């Protein structure tokens, strides 16, 4: 893991393994402690980050440790922004079925994106022209 901290932005890179989820969550927790977010907000952001990094490690980089997951945390007076970038081929989030519909309620997967959207104010996916996919999640301050 490498760490580069400025006054407003933290960037971290993780090899694509399951342990990256806890490592990323710990980094976000430390960042949030400095921002003084409420416990409820911090819980939701933590959950969203864990789900986004899980998706990047498993679905994006397919657990290939040679591929990195990049986490960027940016704080401004208006928003707390989190970006998670993977080196995968991307996907269409609109094709992920709504897990709360009756026909999907007993599915054993597919709730990660639902949690990200539920706990953050904005979530969008951006294909990277240099390759890979970024998910950008925003929590308004």
């Amino acid at each position, binding site marked *: 893991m490498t760490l580069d901290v400025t006054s407003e932005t933290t960037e971290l890179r993780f090899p694509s393994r399951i342990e990256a*989820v806890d490592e990323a969550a710990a980094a976000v927790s430390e960042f949030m402690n400095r921002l003084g977010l409420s416990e409820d907000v911090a819980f939701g952001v933590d959950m969203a980050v864990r789900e986004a990094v899980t998706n990047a490690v498993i679905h994006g980089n397919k657990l290939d440790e040679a591929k990195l997951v990049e986490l960027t945390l940016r704080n401004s007076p208006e928003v707390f922004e989190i970006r998670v970038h993977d080196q995968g081929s991307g996907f269409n989030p609109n094709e992920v079925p709504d*897990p*709360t519909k009756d026909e999907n309620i007993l599915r*054993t997967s597919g709730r990660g994106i639902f*949690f990200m959207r539920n706990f953050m104010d904005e979530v969008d996916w951006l294909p990277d022209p240099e390759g890979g996919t970024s998910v950008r999640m925003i929590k308004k301050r």
Partner: protein
Amino acid sequence: MAELNISERQAGEVTILDMDGKITIGEGSVALRTAIRRLLEEGKKKILLNLAKVGYIDSSGIGELVSSYTAIGKETGQLKLLNLTQKLQDLLTITKLLTVFDVYESEEEALASFK
């Protein structure tokens, strides 16, 4: 220390699993899956999960709860949940799974509910 420690108790025909830790992707989810499979192999089909000390669960862990519920149901067994934390209750509410699971706050009531 393991992410998720599971202790087993027997109350008549009901097996109670006292869970302590996190049910998250990787070790925690696998520990739950392994415990449920073992119980089913042993013919124990009435299972009560005591989640009082589960401080954290992610979408993978919730998926594992659903998987356990359906696996036990296929064997004509019953899975019930006991002592949800407020956070877990909130997560099951927003995913509408609180309407699927049979949830109790009292172990005595939970045990009495098994048929």
